């Protein structure tokens, strides 16, 4: 039995917005795999909840008229992994969310929840950053679109305007982002399942038609700072360069210019930095291979 003050069950996105305006103190609950844990721990004990679990309208993956991939915020991890559109165009996202917790969590946990709780270790976050996802928010004034890097404000806080009754309704990957692009994600954790990332690294690249040159490399980390982050220095250093192991190693060392992991009981800063470099290298090598290139 949860120590919950009240539960409001939204029947539609519109209704969810109304409920949010009516109960601004209430916490939105989607899959529940984070919110209910916090409630059990006492952190959110005695709070009101607005459940959006029933909103099938924001569940599922589709391709919109601009060939952007639209992932409804309530889509569960396991459904993302199994989705043919995801598998065809941005398989790495399916792989990344397939590393969240365990299978039962992935059958319930949602991509919206994973991003809205603003946690740096979220397995979807580094990949969504590396693929420059757009977050769709719906409120009383209609829809608002935010690049994911602007959506994350600080640890545990994202840009959702409660006063406007906003809820997150979709995560969008534009065509320009996924076109001719492939990527790889490494979750570094202390065991191979049921774990949170010590550090997560997601890299993707687009190669020149002859596969000899890096046209565009993007890299993002989870747990390399308070929020998931891109690594502009490393990207700038490799873009336009030849596909060689030396360049990849140069790229991976450059990540240290931008990332700033901290010491915690989970891992030391030095250890995280060391691992971050190794992960960048391995992720880019795999990404090149997936683009049909060779190192």
């Amino acid at each position, binding site marked *: *039995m949860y120590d919950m003050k009240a539960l409001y069950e939204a029947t539609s996105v519109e209704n969810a917005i109304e409920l949010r305006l009516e109960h601004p103190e209430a916490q939105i609950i989607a899959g529940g*795999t984070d919110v*209910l*844990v916090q409630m059990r*721990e006492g952190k959110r004990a005695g709070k009101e909840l607005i459940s959006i*679990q029933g909103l099938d309208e924001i569940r599922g993956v589709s391709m919109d008229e601009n060939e952007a991939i639209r992932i409804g915020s309530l889509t569960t991890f396991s459904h993302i992994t199994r989705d043919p559109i995801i598998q065809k165009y941005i398989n790495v996202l399916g792989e990344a969310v397939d590393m969240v917790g*365990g*299978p*039962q969590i992935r059958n319930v946990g949602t991509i919206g929840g994973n991003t809205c709780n603003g946690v740096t270790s979220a397995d979807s976050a580094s990949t969504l950053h590396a693929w420059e996802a757009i977050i769709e928010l719906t409120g009383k004034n209609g829809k608002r679109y935010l690049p994911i890097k602007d959506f994350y404000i600080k640890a545990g806080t994202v840009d959702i305007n409660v006063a406007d009754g906003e809820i997150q309704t979709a995560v969008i990957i534009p065509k320009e982002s996924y076109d001719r692009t492939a990527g790889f994600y490494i979750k570094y954790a202390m065991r191979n*399942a049921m774990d949170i990332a010590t550090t997560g690294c997601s890299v993707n690249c687009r190669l020149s038609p002859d596969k000899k040159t890096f046209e565009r490399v993007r890299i993002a980390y989870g747990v390399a700072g308070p929020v998931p982050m891109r690594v502009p220095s490393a990207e700038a250093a490799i873009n336009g360069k030849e596909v060689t192991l030396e360049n990849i190693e140069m790229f991976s060392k450059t990540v240290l210019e931008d990332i700033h992991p901290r010491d915690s009981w989970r891992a030391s800063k030095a250890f995280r930095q060391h691992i971050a470099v190794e992960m960048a290298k391995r992720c880019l090598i795999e990404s090149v291979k997936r683009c049909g290139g060779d190192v």
Partner: protein
Amino acid sequence: MAQYKLVTCTINGKKREQIVDVRASLTDMIRNNFHLTSVKKGCEVGECGACTVLIDGEAINSCLYLAVWAEGKNIITLEGLMNPDGTLSDIQQAFIDETAIQCGFCTPGFILTATEILNAGVEYTDDELRKLLSGHLCRCTGYQNIFRAVKKTMLRRLGKDAEAELVK
């Protein structure tokens, strides 16, 4: 004031109606209202898998699922796997035959996740199977015999009985 809601759902093939406290987890409802005590509590925060049930065919941790969300859902617990004639499902029998049970506390959850895996009708690799089973913790078995029970049943369902017999 306590807040209640009528939930209508199917549990183990039977249509059920129940008024529940909205604060109840699905574990609470299944154990306390329906006395299906195969649904175990090992952590109540989704880390151990002992409370696993199937909802519309998918395994979930019932401890992290509100009872009111069961509305309209088809729920299966371990009690629902036995055939009407008293015989066991193949996977239950395999857990017995392969010595995959010790203290028995993780067993119900494991068997339900295995049921979802087997119902996919796919021949998974060992690594895939290990990943699909990774949401359950067990301290008695080292997972070895559980893994074998699932693998053998998977092969048998795919008609590969001879191959199943060779699984060590």
